Protein backbone atom coordinates (compact mmCIF):
# COMPACT_ATOMS: atom_id res chain seq x y z
CA UNK A 1 0.00 0.00 0.00
CA UNK A 2 2.27 2.77 -1.26
CA UNK A 3 2.28 5.15 -4.17
CA UNK A 4 -1.47 4.91 -4.62
CA UNK A 5 -3.87 7.76 -5.20
CA UNK A 6 -6.84 5.62 -4.28
CA UNK A 7 -8.45 6.69 -1.05
CA UNK A 8 -9.13 4.06 1.57
CA UNK A 9 -11.20 4.42 4.70
CA UNK A 10 -8.63 3.69 7.39
CA UNK A 11 -8.09 4.10 11.13
CA UNK A 12 -5.42 6.54 12.25
CA UNK A 13 -3.55 3.77 14.08
CA UNK A 14 -3.43 1.49 11.03
CA UNK A 15 -2.49 4.45 8.85
CA UNK A 16 0.52 5.20 11.08
CA UNK A 17 1.55 1.54 11.05
CA UNK A 18 1.37 1.19 7.25
CA UNK A 19 3.12 4.54 6.79
CA UNK A 20 5.95 3.33 9.04
CA UNK A 21 6.36 0.33 6.75
CA UNK A 22 6.37 2.59 3.68
CA UNK A 23 8.92 4.86 5.36
CA UNK A 24 11.30 1.93 5.67
CA UNK A 25 10.90 1.18 9.35
CA UNK A 26 13.01 -1.95 9.85
CA UNK A 27 12.27 -2.60 13.51
CA UNK A 28 9.25 -2.08 15.72
CA UNK A 29 9.33 -2.71 19.45
CA UNK A 30 6.24 -2.10 21.52
CA UNK A 31 3.96 -3.01 24.34
CA UNK A 32 0.16 -2.86 23.98
CA UNK A 33 -1.87 -0.03 25.48
CA UNK A 34 -5.21 1.48 24.50
CA UNK A 35 -5.83 3.56 22.39
CA UNK A 36 -2.88 2.68 20.13
CA UNK A 37 -2.74 -1.13 20.29
CA UNK A 38 -3.73 -1.44 16.61
CA UNK A 39 -0.31 -0.08 15.58
CA UNK A 40 1.47 -3.03 17.17
CA UNK A 41 -1.24 -5.45 16.08
CA UNK A 42 -0.89 -4.41 12.43
CA UNK A 43 2.89 -4.49 12.49
CA UNK A 44 2.98 -7.87 14.24
CA UNK A 45 1.26 -9.31 11.18
CA UNK A 46 3.07 -7.30 8.49
CA UNK A 47 6.69 -6.90 9.65
CA UNK A 48 7.60 -10.62 9.70
CA UNK A 49 6.12 -11.03 6.20
CA UNK A 50 8.51 -8.31 5.00
CA UNK A 51 11.48 -9.86 6.77
CA UNK A 52 11.58 -6.94 9.22
CA UNK A 53 11.72 -6.97 13.00
CA UNK A 54 8.75 -6.97 15.35
CA UNK A 55 9.12 -7.56 19.07
CA UNK A 56 6.38 -7.37 21.65
CA UNK A 57 8.60 -6.31 24.53
CA UNK A 58 8.06 -7.18 28.19
CA UNK A 59 7.51 -3.54 29.10
CA UNK A 60 7.51 -0.06 27.63
CA UNK A 61 10.91 0.62 29.16
CA UNK A 62 12.32 -2.43 27.40
CA UNK A 63 10.61 -1.47 24.14
CA UNK A 64 12.12 1.98 23.86
CA UNK A 65 15.56 0.80 24.90
CA UNK A 66 15.36 -1.81 22.14
CA UNK A 67 14.56 1.04 19.75
CA UNK A 68 17.69 2.85 20.95
CA UNK A 69 19.78 -0.23 20.27
CA UNK A 70 18.35 -0.73 16.80
CA UNK A 71 18.65 2.95 15.90
CA UNK A 72 22.32 2.91 16.92
CA UNK A 73 22.97 0.49 14.05
CA UNK A 74 21.54 3.02 11.59
CA UNK A 75 18.25 1.30 10.80
CA UNK A 76 14.90 3.04 11.03
CA UNK A 77 13.26 1.96 14.28
CA UNK A 78 10.18 2.98 16.20
CA UNK A 79 7.90 2.29 19.10
CA UNK A 80 4.40 3.48 19.87
CA UNK A 81 2.56 3.92 23.12
CA UNK A 82 0.19 6.15 25.02
CA UNK A 83 0.54 8.90 27.62
CA UNK A 84 1.15 7.12 30.92
CA UNK A 85 3.38 4.54 29.25
CA UNK A 86 5.25 7.23 27.34
CA UNK A 87 5.99 8.64 30.80
CA UNK A 88 7.96 5.44 31.44
CA UNK A 89 10.05 6.11 28.34
CA UNK A 90 11.31 9.55 29.32
CA UNK A 91 14.67 8.36 30.61
CA UNK A 92 15.37 6.66 27.28
CA UNK A 93 14.31 9.77 25.36
CA UNK A 94 16.87 11.81 27.27
CA UNK A 95 19.51 9.19 26.43
CA UNK A 96 18.46 9.09 22.77
CA UNK A 97 18.70 12.87 22.52
CA UNK A 98 22.14 12.89 24.13
CA UNK A 99 23.32 9.91 22.07
CA UNK A 100 21.84 11.58 18.97
CA UNK A 101 19.90 8.48 18.04
CA UNK A 102 17.27 8.79 15.31
CA UNK A 103 14.30 7.15 16.99
CA UNK A 104 10.59 7.60 16.27
CA UNK A 105 8.07 7.44 19.09
CA UNK A 106 4.35 7.58 18.40
CA UNK A 107 2.26 8.81 21.32
CA UNK A 108 -1.50 8.33 20.90
CA UNK A 109 -2.63 10.43 23.84
CA UNK A 110 -5.26 9.48 26.41
CA UNK A 111 -6.36 11.27 29.52
CA UNK A 112 -4.16 11.53 32.62
CA UNK A 113 -2.74 12.23 35.08
CA UNK A 114 -1.71 8.93 36.60
CA UNK A 115 -3.62 5.99 35.20
CA UNK A 116 -6.39 8.29 33.92
CA UNK A 117 -8.47 6.42 31.42
CA UNK A 118 -8.59 5.52 27.74
CA UNK A 119 -10.52 8.58 26.57
CA UNK A 120 -8.69 10.83 24.13
CA UNK A 121 -7.13 14.05 25.45
CA UNK A 122 -4.26 16.39 24.63
CA UNK A 123 -2.56 16.45 28.01
CA UNK A 124 0.89 15.36 26.81
CA UNK A 125 1.87 18.61 25.15
CA UNK A 126 4.23 19.39 28.01
CA UNK A 127 5.49 15.83 28.30
CA UNK A 128 6.34 15.82 24.58
CA UNK A 129 7.61 19.36 24.07
CA UNK A 130 9.42 19.86 27.36
CA UNK A 131 10.06 16.23 28.17
CA UNK A 132 10.17 14.31 31.40
CA UNK A 133 13.75 13.17 31.02
CA UNK A 134 16.74 14.68 32.80
CA UNK A 135 19.05 17.36 31.51
CA UNK A 136 19.01 19.76 28.61
CA UNK A 137 17.67 18.20 25.46
CA UNK A 138 15.06 18.81 22.79
CA UNK A 139 12.77 16.50 20.86
CA UNK A 140 11.15 17.20 17.50
CA UNK A 141 7.37 16.93 17.94
CA UNK A 142 4.91 16.63 15.02
CA UNK A 143 1.15 16.88 15.62
CA UNK A 144 -1.11 15.46 12.89
CA UNK A 145 -4.71 16.68 12.62
CA UNK A 146 -6.16 14.15 10.18
CA UNK A 147 -5.65 10.51 9.23
CA UNK A 148 -3.98 11.73 6.02
CA UNK A 149 -1.48 13.65 8.13
CA UNK A 150 -0.91 10.56 10.29
CA UNK A 151 0.52 9.01 7.11
CA UNK A 152 2.40 12.04 5.80
CA UNK A 153 3.87 13.02 9.17
CA UNK A 154 5.02 9.46 9.87
CA UNK A 155 7.10 9.68 6.68
CA UNK A 156 8.44 13.01 7.83
CA UNK A 157 9.16 11.75 11.35
CA UNK A 158 11.49 9.01 10.10
CA UNK A 159 13.23 11.43 7.75
CA UNK A 160 13.77 14.17 10.34
CA UNK A 161 14.98 11.67 12.93
CA UNK A 162 17.77 10.46 10.66
CA UNK A 163 18.50 13.80 9.01
CA UNK A 164 19.18 15.46 12.36
CA UNK A 165 20.00 12.38 14.45
CA UNK A 166 17.36 13.46 16.93
CA UNK A 167 14.39 11.67 18.53
CA UNK A 168 11.04 12.54 16.95
CA UNK A 169 7.65 12.20 18.62
CA UNK A 170 4.55 11.86 16.48
CA UNK A 171 1.92 13.24 18.84
CA UNK A 172 -1.53 11.91 17.95
CA UNK A 173 -4.50 11.38 20.26
CA UNK A 174 -7.07 8.66 20.89
CA UNK A 175 -9.57 10.36 18.63
CA UNK A 176 -7.17 10.31 15.71
CA UNK A 177 -5.96 6.81 16.49
CA UNK A 178 -9.43 5.30 16.69
CA UNK A 179 -11.26 7.21 13.96
CA UNK A 180 -11.46 6.24 10.31
CA UNK A 181 -11.23 8.74 7.50
CA UNK A 182 -10.48 8.49 3.78
CA UNK A 183 -6.74 8.81 3.14
CA UNK A 184 -4.21 7.65 0.60
CA UNK A 185 -0.66 6.36 0.81
CA UNK A 186 1.56 8.42 -1.42
CA UNK A 187 5.16 7.29 -1.94
CA UNK A 188 7.46 8.31 0.87
CA UNK A 189 8.70 11.62 -0.62
CA UNK A 190 11.86 11.89 1.49
CA UNK A 191 15.32 10.75 0.39
CA UNK A 192 17.43 8.11 2.08
CA UNK A 193 19.78 9.52 4.71
CA UNK A 194 23.40 8.40 4.78
CA UNK A 195 24.17 7.05 8.23
CA UNK A 196 27.52 5.47 7.41
CA UNK A 197 29.58 8.10 9.25
CA UNK A 198 28.22 7.20 12.66
CA UNK A 199 26.17 3.98 12.66
CA UNK A 200 27.49 1.03 14.67
CA UNK A 201 27.79 -1.63 12.01
CA UNK A 202 30.86 -3.54 13.12
CA UNK A 203 34.37 -2.05 12.89
CA UNK A 204 35.48 -3.98 9.85
CA UNK A 205 37.97 -1.99 7.75
CA UNK A 206 37.46 1.10 9.87
CA UNK A 207 38.22 2.48 13.32
CA UNK A 208 35.95 1.39 16.13
CA UNK A 209 33.16 3.69 17.30
CA UNK A 210 31.07 4.03 20.41
CA UNK A 211 27.82 5.82 21.17
CA UNK A 212 27.36 6.81 24.78
CA UNK A 213 26.13 9.73 26.85
CA UNK A 214 28.61 9.52 29.71
CA UNK A 215 30.39 12.87 30.01
CA UNK A 216 33.08 12.89 32.72
CA UNK A 217 35.17 15.44 30.81
CA UNK A 218 33.57 18.72 31.79
CA UNK A 219 34.79 20.72 28.81
CA UNK A 220 33.65 18.06 26.36
CA UNK A 221 30.28 17.81 28.08
CA UNK A 222 29.77 21.56 27.88
CA UNK A 223 30.61 21.46 24.18
CA UNK A 224 28.31 18.46 23.68
CA UNK A 225 25.31 20.29 25.13
CA UNK A 226 26.08 23.44 23.13
CA UNK A 227 26.29 21.28 20.01
CA UNK A 228 22.92 19.70 20.72
CA UNK A 229 21.33 23.11 21.08
CA UNK A 230 23.07 24.51 18.01
CA UNK A 231 21.68 21.57 16.10
CA UNK A 232 18.23 22.35 17.38
CA UNK A 233 18.60 25.96 16.25
CA UNK A 234 19.21 24.63 12.75
CA UNK A 235 16.18 22.36 13.10
CA UNK A 236 14.09 25.35 14.17
CA UNK A 237 15.38 27.37 11.21
CA UNK A 238 14.69 24.64 8.64
CA UNK A 239 11.81 22.60 9.93
CA UNK A 240 9.42 24.81 11.94
CA UNK A 241 6.06 24.38 10.26
CA UNK A 242 2.54 25.61 10.74
CA UNK A 243 -0.64 26.33 8.82
CA UNK A 244 -2.60 29.54 8.90
CA UNK A 245 -6.01 30.39 7.50
CA UNK A 246 -7.46 33.85 6.88
CA UNK A 247 -5.06 35.48 9.32
CA UNK A 248 -4.37 38.45 7.07
CA UNK A 249 -7.35 40.59 8.07
CA UNK A 250 -8.14 38.71 11.29
CA UNK A 251 -8.79 40.46 14.60
CA UNK A 252 -8.72 37.20 16.49
CA UNK A 253 -6.76 34.06 15.70
CA UNK A 254 -7.94 30.68 16.94
CA UNK A 255 -5.03 28.39 17.74
CA UNK A 256 -5.08 24.64 18.24
CA UNK A 257 -2.89 21.61 17.62
CA UNK A 258 -3.63 18.11 16.43
CA UNK A 259 -7.17 16.90 15.86
CA UNK A 260 -8.68 20.06 17.41
CA UNK A 261 -7.55 21.88 14.26
CA UNK A 262 -10.65 20.92 12.30
CA UNK A 263 -12.92 22.29 15.03
CA UNK A 264 -11.29 25.72 15.01
CA UNK A 265 -11.41 25.86 11.22
CA UNK A 266 -15.15 25.16 11.30
CA UNK A 267 -15.64 27.73 14.09
CA UNK A 268 -13.74 30.28 12.01
CA UNK A 269 -16.22 29.84 9.16
CA UNK A 270 -19.19 30.37 11.49
CA UNK A 271 -17.55 33.46 13.00
CA UNK A 272 -16.81 34.88 9.55
CA UNK A 273 -20.47 34.37 8.57
CA UNK A 274 -21.38 36.43 11.66
CA UNK A 275 -19.06 39.23 10.55
CA UNK A 276 -16.32 38.50 13.08
CA UNK A 277 -12.89 38.57 11.50
CA UNK A 278 -11.49 35.30 12.78
CA UNK A 279 -8.48 33.41 11.53
CA UNK A 280 -6.77 30.13 12.43
CA UNK A 281 -3.20 29.29 13.31
CA UNK A 282 -2.15 25.73 13.75
CA UNK A 283 1.39 24.69 14.72
CA UNK A 284 2.42 21.49 12.92
CA UNK A 285 5.76 21.23 14.71
CA UNK A 286 5.05 21.75 18.42
CA UNK A 287 8.79 21.58 18.89
CA UNK A 288 10.34 23.60 17.33
CA UNK A 289 7.40 25.89 18.09
CA UNK A 290 6.49 28.59 15.52
CA UNK A 291 6.94 31.39 18.04
CA UNK A 292 8.39 33.83 15.49
CA UNK A 293 5.29 33.77 13.32
CA UNK A 294 2.94 34.10 16.31
CA UNK A 295 5.00 37.02 17.56
CA UNK A 296 4.73 38.66 14.13
CA UNK A 297 0.95 38.24 13.99
CA UNK A 298 0.55 39.49 17.56
CA UNK A 299 2.67 42.48 16.60
CA UNK A 300 -0.08 43.38 14.12
CA UNK A 301 -2.49 43.60 17.07
CA UNK A 302 -4.22 40.27 16.53
CA UNK A 303 -5.51 38.52 19.62
CA UNK A 304 -5.02 34.78 20.14
CA UNK A 305 -7.51 32.31 21.57
CA UNK A 306 -6.00 28.89 22.27
CA UNK A 307 -8.37 25.91 22.05
CA UNK A 308 -7.09 22.67 23.54
CA UNK A 309 -8.13 19.51 25.37
CA UNK A 310 -5.94 20.01 28.44
CA UNK A 311 -5.63 22.61 31.16
CA UNK A 312 -3.78 25.13 29.00
CA UNK A 313 -0.42 23.61 28.07
CA UNK A 314 0.14 25.06 24.60
CA UNK A 315 -1.50 28.26 25.87
CA UNK A 316 1.69 29.10 27.76
CA UNK A 317 3.82 28.84 24.62
CA UNK A 318 1.38 30.98 22.64
CA UNK A 319 1.27 33.58 25.39
CA UNK A 320 5.07 33.61 25.55
CA UNK A 321 5.24 34.02 21.77
CA UNK A 322 2.66 36.82 21.79
CA UNK A 323 4.93 38.57 24.26
CA UNK A 324 2.29 40.91 25.64
CA UNK A 325 1.71 42.59 22.26
CA UNK A 326 -1.94 41.51 22.21
CA UNK A 327 -4.25 39.42 24.34
CA UNK A 328 -4.11 35.64 24.70
CA UNK A 329 -7.15 33.67 25.84
CA UNK A 330 -7.80 30.01 26.53
CA UNK A 331 -10.85 27.82 25.96
CA UNK A 332 -10.32 24.28 27.09
CA UNK A 333 -11.62 21.09 28.66
CA UNK A 334 -9.33 18.42 30.11
CA UNK A 335 -11.21 15.46 28.58
CA UNK A 336 -14.55 14.52 27.00
CA UNK A 337 -16.20 15.52 23.76
CA UNK A 338 -13.88 17.74 21.73
CA UNK A 339 -14.90 21.38 22.21
CA UNK A 340 -17.73 21.88 19.76
CA UNK A 341 -17.88 24.53 17.07
CA UNK A 342 -20.72 26.21 19.01
CA UNK A 343 -18.68 26.30 22.23
CA UNK A 344 -15.70 27.79 20.44
CA UNK A 345 -17.86 30.42 18.73
CA UNK A 346 -19.40 31.38 22.06
CA UNK A 347 -15.98 31.60 23.69
CA UNK A 348 -14.74 33.91 20.94
CA UNK A 349 -17.78 36.16 21.29
CA UNK A 350 -17.25 36.42 25.05
CA UNK A 351 -13.56 37.00 24.62
CA UNK A 352 -14.11 39.79 22.07
CA UNK A 353 -16.72 41.49 24.23
CA UNK A 354 -14.51 41.50 27.29
CA UNK A 355 -11.55 42.58 25.22
CA UNK A 356 -13.16 45.74 23.86
CA UNK A 357 -11.32 48.14 26.14
CA UNK A 358 -8.12 46.17 25.98
CA UNK A 359 -8.14 45.94 22.20
CA UNK A 360 -8.43 49.71 21.86
CA UNK A 361 -5.38 49.97 24.02
CA UNK A 362 -3.42 47.85 21.58
CA UNK A 363 -4.84 49.15 18.32
Amino acid at each position, binding site marked *: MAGSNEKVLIKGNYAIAQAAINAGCQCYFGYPIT*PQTEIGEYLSAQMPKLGRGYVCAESEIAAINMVLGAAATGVRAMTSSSSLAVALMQEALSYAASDELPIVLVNVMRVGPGLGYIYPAQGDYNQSVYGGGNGDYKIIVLAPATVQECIDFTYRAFYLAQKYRNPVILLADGLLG*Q*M*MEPAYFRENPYPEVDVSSWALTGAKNRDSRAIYSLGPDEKKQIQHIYNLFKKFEIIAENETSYEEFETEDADIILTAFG*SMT*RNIKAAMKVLRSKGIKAGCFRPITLSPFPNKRINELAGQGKDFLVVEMNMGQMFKDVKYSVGGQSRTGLVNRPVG*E*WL*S*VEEIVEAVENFMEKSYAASIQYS
Partner: protein
Amino acid sequence: MEKNFILAGFGGQGILLAGTILANSFMLEGKNVTWYPCYGAEMRGGTVNCEIVVSDSEVSSVHKQDTDYALVLNQQSFDKFVHRVKSGGTIISNSTLVAESRPRSDIEYVFAPMTQIANELGNSKVTNMAALGVLASVCDVVSKEYLAKGFEKVMAGKKKELLPLNIKALERGYGAHTQAK
Protein backbone atom coordinates in the same frame (compact mmCIF):
# COMPACT_ATOMS: atom_id res chain seq x y z
CA MET B 1 -24.12 20.21 4.12
CA GLU B 2 -22.96 18.31 7.17
CA LYS B 3 -24.92 15.53 8.86
CA ASN B 4 -24.01 13.19 11.63
CA PHE B 5 -25.22 9.73 12.53
CA ILE B 6 -24.99 7.63 15.64
CA LEU B 7 -25.39 3.89 15.14
CA ALA B 8 -25.93 1.91 18.33
CA GLY B 9 -26.93 -1.55 19.54
CA PHE B 10 -25.73 -4.71 21.30
CA GLY B 11 -22.20 -5.93 20.72
CA GLY B 12 -22.65 -8.57 18.01
CA GLN B 13 -25.37 -6.81 16.03
CA GLY B 14 -22.85 -5.54 13.52
CA ILE B 15 -22.99 -1.89 14.51
CA LEU B 16 -19.37 -1.02 13.83
CA LEU B 17 -19.49 -2.90 10.52
CA ALA B 18 -22.70 -1.10 9.51
CA GLY B 19 -20.99 2.19 10.34
CA THR B 20 -17.96 1.20 8.31
CA ILE B 21 -20.16 0.32 5.33
CA LEU B 22 -22.05 3.62 5.67
CA ALA B 23 -18.79 5.59 5.88
CA ASN B 24 -17.41 3.76 2.85
CA SER B 25 -20.58 4.56 0.90
CA PHE B 26 -20.04 8.25 1.61
CA MET B 27 -16.37 8.03 0.64
CA LEU B 28 -17.27 6.31 -2.65
CA GLU B 29 -19.73 9.11 -3.35
CA GLY B 30 -16.82 11.52 -3.06
CA LYS B 31 -17.88 13.09 0.23
CA ASN B 32 -15.76 13.83 3.28
CA VAL B 33 -16.52 11.46 6.11
CA THR B 34 -15.27 10.42 9.53
CA TRP B 35 -16.09 7.31 11.57
CA TYR B 36 -15.44 7.23 15.30
CA PRO B 37 -16.26 4.28 17.56
CA CYS B 38 -17.05 4.31 21.21
CA TYR B 39 -14.22 2.41 22.77
CA GLY B 40 -13.94 1.46 26.37
CA ALA B 41 -14.02 -1.48 28.72
CA GLU B 42 -16.85 -3.05 26.70
CA MET B 43 -18.14 -6.53 27.35
CA ARG B 44 -20.18 -9.11 25.49
CA GLY B 45 -23.83 -8.14 25.61
CA GLY B 46 -22.97 -4.52 26.34
CA THR B 47 -23.83 -1.65 24.05
CA VAL B 48 -21.65 -0.39 21.26
CA ASN B 49 -21.92 2.66 19.08
CA CYS B 50 -20.14 4.61 16.40
CA GLU B 51 -20.48 8.11 15.09
CA ILE B 52 -20.30 9.05 11.41
CA VAL B 53 -20.06 12.60 10.14
CA VAL B 54 -20.50 13.30 6.44
CA SER B 55 -19.81 16.67 4.86
CA ASP B 56 -19.46 18.36 1.47
CA SER B 57 -16.54 20.32 2.87
CA GLU B 58 -14.13 19.44 5.68
CA VAL B 59 -15.73 17.61 8.60
CA SER B 60 -16.07 20.19 11.37
CA SER B 61 -15.93 17.95 14.41
CA VAL B 62 -15.57 14.18 14.67
CA HIS B 63 -17.08 13.58 18.09
CA LYS B 64 -20.19 15.65 18.71
CA GLN B 65 -22.61 16.02 21.57
CA ASP B 66 -25.75 15.69 19.43
CA THR B 67 -26.77 14.00 16.21
CA ASP B 68 -29.04 14.46 13.19
CA TYR B 69 -29.84 10.76 12.96
CA ALA B 70 -29.71 7.97 15.52
CA LEU B 71 -30.05 4.39 14.27
CA VAL B 72 -30.71 2.20 17.32
CA LEU B 73 -30.99 -1.57 17.29
CA ASN B 74 -31.84 -2.25 20.94
CA GLN B 75 -33.80 -0.73 23.82
CA GLN B 76 -30.79 0.49 25.82
CA SER B 77 -29.53 2.40 22.82
CA PHE B 78 -32.96 3.95 22.24
CA ASP B 79 -33.16 5.07 25.88
CA LYS B 80 -29.68 6.56 25.75
CA PHE B 81 -29.61 8.22 22.34
CA VAL B 82 -33.16 9.52 22.07
CA HIS B 83 -31.90 12.42 24.19
CA ARG B 84 -28.90 13.08 21.94
CA VAL B 85 -30.95 13.63 18.77
CA LYS B 86 -31.03 17.27 17.65
CA SER B 87 -34.38 19.01 17.69
CA GLY B 88 -35.89 18.23 14.30
CA GLY B 89 -33.69 15.14 13.94
CA THR B 90 -34.75 11.52 13.51
CA ILE B 91 -34.39 8.37 15.56
CA ILE B 92 -34.72 5.14 13.61
CA SER B 93 -35.42 2.13 15.80
CA ASN B 94 -35.43 -1.63 15.45
CA SER B 95 -39.04 -2.29 16.50
CA THR B 96 -38.32 -6.01 16.97
CA LEU B 97 -36.34 -5.11 20.10
CA VAL B 98 -37.41 -1.54 20.86
CA ALA B 99 -40.82 -0.73 22.33
CA GLU B 100 -42.62 2.01 20.40
CA SER B 101 -42.60 5.14 22.52
CA ARG B 102 -42.19 8.84 21.82
CA PRO B 103 -40.65 10.55 24.84
CA ARG B 104 -39.96 13.80 22.94
CA SER B 105 -42.24 15.78 20.64
CA ASP B 106 -39.56 17.69 18.71
CA ILE B 107 -38.02 14.77 16.79
CA GLU B 108 -39.18 12.25 14.19
CA TYR B 109 -39.59 8.59 15.06
CA VAL B 110 -39.14 5.77 12.59
CA PHE B 111 -39.80 2.16 13.57
CA ALA B 112 -38.98 -0.91 11.46
CA PRO B 113 -38.70 -4.60 12.44
CA MET B 114 -35.06 -4.99 11.45
CA THR B 115 -34.27 -8.20 13.33
CA GLN B 116 -37.50 -9.74 12.09
CA ILE B 117 -36.60 -8.91 8.48
CA ALA B 118 -33.23 -10.57 8.97
CA ASN B 119 -34.79 -13.65 10.59
CA GLU B 120 -37.24 -13.98 7.71
CA LEU B 121 -34.26 -14.04 5.38
CA GLY B 122 -32.87 -16.85 7.50
CA ASN B 123 -29.94 -15.11 9.17
CA SER B 124 -30.19 -12.64 12.06
CA LYS B 125 -26.66 -11.44 11.26
CA VAL B 126 -27.98 -9.29 8.41
CA THR B 127 -30.00 -7.14 10.83
CA ASN B 128 -27.42 -4.39 10.32
CA MET B 129 -27.95 -4.38 6.55
CA ALA B 130 -31.73 -4.25 6.97
CA ALA B 131 -31.15 -1.30 9.31
CA LEU B 132 -29.03 0.49 6.69
CA GLY B 133 -31.84 -0.12 4.18
CA VAL B 134 -34.32 1.61 6.49
CA LEU B 135 -31.85 4.46 7.00
CA ALA B 136 -31.46 4.92 3.23
CA SER B 137 -35.22 5.18 2.77
CA VAL B 138 -35.66 7.93 5.37
CA CYS B 139 -32.45 9.89 4.87
CA ASP B 140 -31.76 11.75 1.61
CA VAL B 141 -28.02 11.83 2.19
CA VAL B 142 -27.75 8.03 2.29
CA SER B 143 -27.85 6.14 -1.00
CA LYS B 144 -28.91 2.50 -1.20
CA GLU B 145 -26.78 1.96 -4.32
CA TYR B 146 -23.66 3.32 -2.63
CA LEU B 147 -24.39 1.27 0.50
CA ALA B 148 -24.23 -1.83 -1.71
CA LYS B 149 -20.93 -0.58 -3.15
CA GLY B 150 -19.71 0.19 0.35
CA PHE B 151 -20.51 -3.37 1.41
CA GLU B 152 -18.58 -4.77 -1.54
CA LYS B 153 -15.63 -2.56 -0.72
CA VAL B 154 -15.53 -3.57 2.95
CA MET B 155 -15.99 -7.26 2.18
CA ALA B 156 -13.70 -7.23 -0.87
CA GLY B 157 -12.01 -10.57 -1.28
CA LYS B 158 -13.20 -11.85 2.07
CA LYS B 159 -16.73 -13.15 2.00
CA LYS B 160 -18.12 -12.58 -1.44
CA GLU B 161 -20.71 -15.33 -1.05
CA LEU B 162 -22.42 -13.19 1.59
CA LEU B 163 -23.16 -10.41 -0.88
CA PRO B 164 -26.54 -11.60 -2.27
CA LEU B 165 -28.08 -12.17 1.18
CA ASN B 166 -26.85 -8.82 2.46
CA ILE B 167 -28.12 -6.96 -0.58
CA LYS B 168 -31.47 -8.68 -0.10
CA ALA B 169 -31.56 -7.47 3.52
CA LEU B 170 -30.70 -3.95 2.38
CA GLU B 171 -33.57 -4.06 -0.16
CA ARG B 172 -36.05 -5.50 2.35
CA GLY B 173 -35.15 -2.83 4.90
CA TYR B 174 -35.69 -0.07 2.36
CA GLY B 175 -39.17 1.34 3.00
CA ALA B 176 -40.05 -1.23 5.69
CA HIS B 177 -40.94 1.39 8.26
CA THR B 178 -43.68 3.37 9.86
CA GLN B 179 -43.03 7.02 10.52
CA ALA B 180 -44.70 9.36 12.96
CA LYS B 181 -44.05 12.57 14.75
